[in-house]
């Protein structure tokens, strides 16, 4: 190597070190990583709560509650940061819980703020809580210390997610608020002394405001109508004595345009296992009951949502390519409520629980033959 090359390499190395700013980064043990943020409003001030895991060697992992008040959310966070010795690193926040009252006023601006903040990731799950935030956070910490369950596991797919919970994350809420053709529903919860939490269903947001509440069965239907969710181990109660388990589900949306009118046929196909039934019912009857119930419930849900001009099922989203931007602006108000909806349900019973059922199987004839012989 020439002497000149060494100079170049030296300059490169020095600039690499001095321009990188690596001394500003803090190690992981000097950062606090909150996992849950609670947001409420006290009179005119925003009140932010954070749950921070505190880990001390050779002791059980604990949760700590920190809170701060401020005129804006960022101000409240700044007030909160002053109370803590370490850096607060919002990048690990997994859940944001909002007061239901905020939802009634409209959470559009709050969600915008979260999207703007660089250190909040786009992926925390969002939920509303019905009760006082302070009690709620205390209750959560208490439950964790008693039971040690992962906090908010019911919203995480790998841990405790069920089909009757809507799964929404921050950027989806943002999309739901700002999209012309789709809305979003957010789970509504509260704490409970005995269990980890109470689940009340989901609030449907329109332009950031709660307009309607869905119960857990309606949420399940909503998830069934969306082809993406996994249906394995989903149980549907048909009436007081009958229950089926879904094995497979397929949904098709069939749109037909007649002038200004839009007809929509939702074709649902199910494969079932009978999991609970009275003995006198045979497969055909159960199948018919199931089909009728699904059809009725689905129509009811869609009508309910159409009445509120809110579309959490993605019905309008699927045909937005047929309309101009100007038409889309008022799509949910003018066109969506007038879509004629028809539901087609087709169910196949795969097995009836591997029981010997005289109403169904071929053993009947064989029994008769045997008796005749006797």
């Amino acid at each position, binding site marked *: *190597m020439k002497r000149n090359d060494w100079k170049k390499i030296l300059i490169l190395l020095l600039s*690499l*070190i001095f321009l*990188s700013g*690596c001394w500003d*980064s*803090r*190690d*992981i*043990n000097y*950062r606090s*990583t909150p*996992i849950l943020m609670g947001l409420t409003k006290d009179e005119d001030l925003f009140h932010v709560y954070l749950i921070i*895991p505190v*880990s*001390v*060697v050779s002791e059980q*992992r604990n949760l700590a509650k920190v809170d701060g008040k401020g005129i804006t959310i960022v101000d409240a966070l700044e007030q909160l940061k002053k109370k803590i010795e370490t850096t607060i*690193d919002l*990048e*690990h926040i*997994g859940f944001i819980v909002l007061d239901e009252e905020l939802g009634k006023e409209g959470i559009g601006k709050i969600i915008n703020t979260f999207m703007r903040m660089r250190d909040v*990731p786009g992926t925390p799950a969002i939920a509303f809580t019905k009760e006082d935030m302070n009690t709620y956070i205390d209750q959560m910490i208490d439950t964790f210390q008693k039971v040690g369950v992962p906090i908010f596991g019911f919203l995480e797919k790998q841990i405790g997610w069920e089909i009757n919970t809507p799964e929404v994350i921050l950027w989806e809420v943002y999309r739901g608020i700002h999209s012309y053709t789709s809305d979003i529903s957010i789970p509504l919860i509260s704490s409970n002394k005995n269990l980890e939490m109470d689940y009340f269903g989901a609030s449907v947001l329109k332009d950031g405001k709660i307009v309607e509440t869905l119960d857990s069965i309606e949420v399940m239907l909503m998830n069934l109508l969306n082809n993406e969710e996994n249906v394995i181990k989903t149980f549907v109660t048909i009436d007081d004595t009958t229950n089926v388990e879904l094995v497979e589900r397929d949904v098709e949306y069939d749109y037909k345009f007649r002038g200004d009118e839009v007809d929509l046929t939702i074709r649902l196909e199910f494969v079932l296992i009978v999991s609970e039934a009275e003995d006198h019912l045979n497969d055909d009857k159960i199948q018919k009951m199931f089909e009728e119930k699904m059809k009725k419930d689905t129509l009811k849900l869609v009508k309910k949502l159409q009445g509120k001009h809110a579309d959490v099922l993605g019905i309008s989203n699927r045909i937005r390519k047929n309309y101009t931007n100007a038409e889309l602006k008022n799509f949910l108000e003018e066109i969506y409520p007038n879509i004629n909806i028809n539901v087609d349900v087709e169910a196949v019973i795969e097995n009836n629980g591997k029981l010997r059922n005289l109403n169904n199987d071929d053993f009947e004839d064989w029994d008769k033959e045997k008796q005749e012989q006797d």
Partner: protein
Amino acid sequence: MPAMDFMNEIENLKQKNKDLQMKSIMINDTAYDVIGFESLVDFSATWEIVEALIGNQENKSQGSKGFQSKNITWNKIEINKQMQALYEGKLIIWDRAEEASLIVDPVSQPLYRSIEVPVNESVIYGAKDAFTENSQQNIGLLRSKYQSKDFEVMTTQHGKRNRRFSFLILKGTTDQKMVEMIKKKIEDYPNEIKQVKDIHVAFGFSKFSLITRVSSTELPENAMEYIEQGKIVFFMDGYPFALVMFNTVFDVFKQPSDSNYLSVFVYSLYMLRIVGIMIAVLLPGLYVALITINPEMLKVQLALSITESRQFVPYPAFIEIIIMLLLIELITEAAVRLPISISNTIGVVGGIILGQAIVEASLVSGVLIIIIAATTIANGIVINFENGITLRLMKYIIVIFSALFGILGHVIGLLVLCSYIARITSFGVPYVRWKKEGIQSENQ
């Protein structure tokens, strides 16, 4: 008088070298002197040969018929040549009367160890012989593996030491021009070639290269395979390894004796080695990047347990990992230097006491010990110790980049290393090349 000259010369030599022996022998009334270095020649065993030879000579002169070697002729050989022959371990028989001499190959002293099992490269299923310091023996090992007229050996000698370099040529496979060129480079090198480093210099390769271009192998099986692949293999006298030129990046995780296993297992073995190389190079850097700059990429649970284990560690992750890596390098080097009986102790001290105690003293985190252990173990998975050294050095580059720029730097470091490896060539033949057989330079 040449005779007097010769005797004077020998007397002179005898004064300076006490191990030079000159013994007189009378056969059929003729006096002969037998001269040779005692340290190189086993006289008592050679005696029989000498007697037989001279007796043969007498018989020949009497005109009798029978088996006899025609090569042995008495000559008036130049003094210098005779001296040189003495130093090469030959025996000189001097006929006083006719002033002629005979250069004989004697039974030499057992100066070379016998062929043993490989020490540095262990094989499970595969040939278990290994090269020794004697390059004649090494060539013999290869000849026994390729018994054909296509196998040729080209030899050159270099320097004051008169060191022999033997090139192995397989007709039709080996690039003869390349061998000639390499041979010429060695012959033209003005300084003494003492170690492999000097060969690098003679070939004009950079001294600061991270990747060895003249790699060594101890196994004749490997060497034979490399010859058949068209790589150039040569021996340096006294160096108990075959030197291989034009090795490729695939030689880092492929070994000829692998093929003695089930094919499926061989492919999984390759995968395992690639994963091992990745771990050895990338894991320490990843630790630094994730701990210092990008902790948001960890899962919460993992982040918390790392935080827990790093609770009382007083310095940044970069310093922490450098301390640990340094300790491991020290242990490795100490284990090489020390006698085998003591080096086991080093393992215990290093592994158990240091690993356990250093965590309890909160000097490094427990997670780091796992990382370092994984790195050190994975480092040993590559074929050939030389490649392991390369990996050992490369991981520091990645660590430095990661400490500066986090995950981004980690990727940049990997990119820098990849482009460095990609531009390595020896005599125009790239190091990263797909072609399995033969060598082809970029310029062709």
